[in-house]
């Protein structure tokens, strides 16, 4: 680890504090997106796919479906 002219610690010319800053921001991005990803991934699963995977896992091959979206759009259109 060396110190740049700015006085900030750096490794191979990379400012360590900036790396830590972006790591923290990325962690927060994951924190805010994780529940949304769970909801979105689940919305594309078949009932079997939902039962056999965790909510945040992407739908397995062959278990990907848009049935729930179709049902919802038909249900929403009723009465319009």
């Amino acid at each position, binding site marked *: 680890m060396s110190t740049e002219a700015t006085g900030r610690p750096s490794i191979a010319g990379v400012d360590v504090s900036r790396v830590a800053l972006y790591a923290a921001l990325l962690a927060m*991005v994951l924190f805010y997106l994780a529940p949304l990803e*769970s909801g979105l991934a689940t919305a594309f699963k078949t009932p079997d796919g939902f039962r056999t995977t965790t909510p945040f896992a992407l739908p397995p091959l062959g278990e990907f479906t848009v049935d729930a979206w179709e049902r919802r759009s038909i249900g929403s259109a009723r009465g319009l």
Partner: protein
Amino acid sequence: MSSPSSAAPHRDASDDASDEQGKTEPATRTDGGAVVDSADESAAATGRSETSWLARARQSRLLESLPFWGPPGLLVVFFVYGAIAWNFVISLTGWEGLGAPSYDSLSTEMYTRLLSDPSFHAAFRNTLVLLIAFTVLSLAVGLLVAILLDQQIRFENTVRTIYLLPMSLSFVVTAIFWSWMYNPRIGLVNEVLRSLGLGGLTQAWLSDPQFKLAAIVFALMWQFSGYCMVVYLAGLRAIPNAQYEAARIDGASTLRLYWRVIVPQLRASTMSAAVVLVVFALKAFDFLFVLFGVNPGASADILSVMMYRVAFDRIQWAYGSAVAMVLFAMALGVIGPYLFVQYRRGEL
């Protein structure tokens, strides 16, 4: 460019002053004399003395604007404040069941009953804990994220949008998402703990009375800390760069710079964000209702859920109204002082 908003207060203030003084009073000249216009002279000459209150009423901007604020004002008075007043009267009756309320004998019996009801004590305590913990945690995370974002980073707009995204969801959607997140077997929270080798910390977050309220606070913090971030970021951007530079020249470390110089200047941001958070916390009914139904248990019961349970599940309207009045008083206790302070500062 001169903005209309900056000119408007000056114009309104002078107009109000002239309204208060009335047009009958002559303006004073800088040389000590009085300016008397021709209209006043002729009125005096003819001896016609129109009563000052009538003249003021005719020229009053308040009356002129009556058709605009009158009808909506009446609607608000009737449907908002009238409903609150009626709710208070109902809380003084003993109304239960499907019949009509009787207003013959009004008493504070329901409030006395509240004071001796253990479920009310639990709900009141939980509501206070929720208010304080949720508000403090959301403000702290929001401030931290705002400070991180204020470091001239790349993709700031994208990151900011992602942080603010949960705010756009309804409590119902958030509750469903977090019921999956907290699932003891397949939920992400326990999965992450297991993958970090902290399997001993995994819990049944939503069924263990010890962790229920904390789990709710954490989920609500997820939803609203983005809002605090936006408020704080606006506050941070309003602080002149010179103050950062002056503190740096004085040798202040980053931590000291924020703690001693920057954060104290964010008081107004903190106040406005805190008021909004408290109001949302008081309205967290949907969130708890989706997760637990009408019976969240003593460890997670809050006043709004108790009010619904008592009124619409047990059909005890008067008792439910009394709970609602306590909830209303709590909201007023937070918003009232805030509005008063804003009014005193002339920002209302």
